[in-house]
């Protein structure tokens, strides 16, 4: 029987899979926002089931900063840089999406081998979602050529780690969670500014061509 936490994190994993299929930056950012909102909901349900009030603030922070703030900031960046579409690399996005779904099934099989956490809020399904988000972030980073796509892939991986920790433990201390959240926000800000600098120096943000930097 699945709980509402399982449902939320699996929803997030599926939304991340759907994100891989499109190269439109705005659609990608929307899907990332929706995915993160699902994770915030899962955090809220975990707070309810563990009766921990600290997690409620974390859920609110995730919804505000990660689900709304980061997509808005990256959307603003892409507007400023006037890029709306990634060019894609290695695998065509539709095939990459099918690959991530197969990886989702693979991570389901993978988590069968894990010992079931005895006290945690959500067992196998949470671990499935976490590992599948890791894979998905990896595929996003592999199949994107623009720096913004790379940042998105990194964010999805971060989501995966967070989901895994949330569902497999009794909850990390609130300070640690807040620290991670702050680090990530600063990371995205810095990389967003870096993208501006790259664009200014090289007139594109194609990371595949960055090797030609050296003179």
């Amino acid at each position, binding site marked *: 029987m699945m709980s509402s936490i399982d*449902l939320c994190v699996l929803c997030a994993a599926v939304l991340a*899979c*759907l994100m891989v*299929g499109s190269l439109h930056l705005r659609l990608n950012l929307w899907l990332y926002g929706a995915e993160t909102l699902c994770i915030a909901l899962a955090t809220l349900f975990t707070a309810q089931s563990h009766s921990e009030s600290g997690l409620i603030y974390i859920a609110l922070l995730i919804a505000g900063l990660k689900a709304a703030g980061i997509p808005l900031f990256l959307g603003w960046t892409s507007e400023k840089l006037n890029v709306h579409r990634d060019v894609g690399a290695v695998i065509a*996005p*539709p095939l990459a999406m*099918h690959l991530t779904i197969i990886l*989702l*099934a693979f991570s*389901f099989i993978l988590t069968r081998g894990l010992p079931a956490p005895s006290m945690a809020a959500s067992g196998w399904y949470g671990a499935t979602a976490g590992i599948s988000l890791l894979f998905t972030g990896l595929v996003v980073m592999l199949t994107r050529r623009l720096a913004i796509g790379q940042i998105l892939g990194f964010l999805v991986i971060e989501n995966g780690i967070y989901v895994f920790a949330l569902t497999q433990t009794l909850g990390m201390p609130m300070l640690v969670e807040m620290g991670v959240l702050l680090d990530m926000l600063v990371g995205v800000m810095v990389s967003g500014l870096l993208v501006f600098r790259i664009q200014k120096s090289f007139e594109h943000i194609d990371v595949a061509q960055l090797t030609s930097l050296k003179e």
Partner: protein
Amino acid sequence: MTDANIHLLKICSDWILFVLCIVLVPPLCLGLIRKTKARLQNRVGPPLFQPLLDLLKLCKKGETISSTMSGTFRLSTVVVLATMLVLAWMTPWLSFKPWSPNADLFLIVYLFALARVFTLLGALDSGSAFGAFGASREVTLGLLVEPALLLGLVALGLFSGSSDLRLIFAYSHFQYLGATAVPGIWLLVGISILLSSLVELSRMPVDDPTTHLELTMVHEAMILEASGRNLAFIEFAHALRMSILFGLAAQCFVHAAAAVWCMSALTEGLLSIGGICVIAISVGVLESLSVKLQWRKVPEFVAYVVSMSLLAAFVAAGTGVARL
């Protein structure tokens, strides 16, 4: 009256109701889509059953035939209409229907393919260049969308443990399964069938059915040479195909609802007709709001449909693992 008489009466009434549905629902679907589009463009629009009247008028009209045509053209129309009628009889696109034979899901998918092949033959036989254009596009679409439809139905077969569509769509398979996964599978498969039917029927995101430019048409380009009674048959077969596919999608959604709330047979029957109407109206809304995709972008759209089916298949397989 004896029991046998009552039984006979029930069978007769079932058949009459079913035949009425086969005759009335397809034109109603077309009419609803046209009416919705008209209302959204601030027009009054034709009456709901105008497509039926159009078909009747076409039946009375004379026919012009190209001199290069062989008998294949005539045969194709007959085969397509007959296949569609058989499909309407076998496929559980309504929750109520009279006795029907074993409807294996592979048989159903390939009967749809048979109808498509004969539409193609008819188009190629007509000798017009546009027919060949349309045929080529129809084959491309068919190739793309077949895995999605097949995978979706296989997913349903996987978790209900049967490949017979009558058993799969029998409102009885959800008692002993993990309760949350079941509406999920039905919803995913419903979305996948609905989206793949848009591709299969060459409707809006893939092709504009009301276009007047032969270079972009798919289905309309194939039937350009048909006229009179022939055209009426082809149009009716196409509308019937639409209502079967929409009906299957609606059945998936009704099953998803039935896995959560208990329903009586009458509610299910009303919902299956109502579901088709709601889907037709939403297709009309979609066609008013969206623009036609570039032909190169169609595989991307289909990829999303295949993803839905893949997800459903994996969830179905996963619940099987969880049950063991």
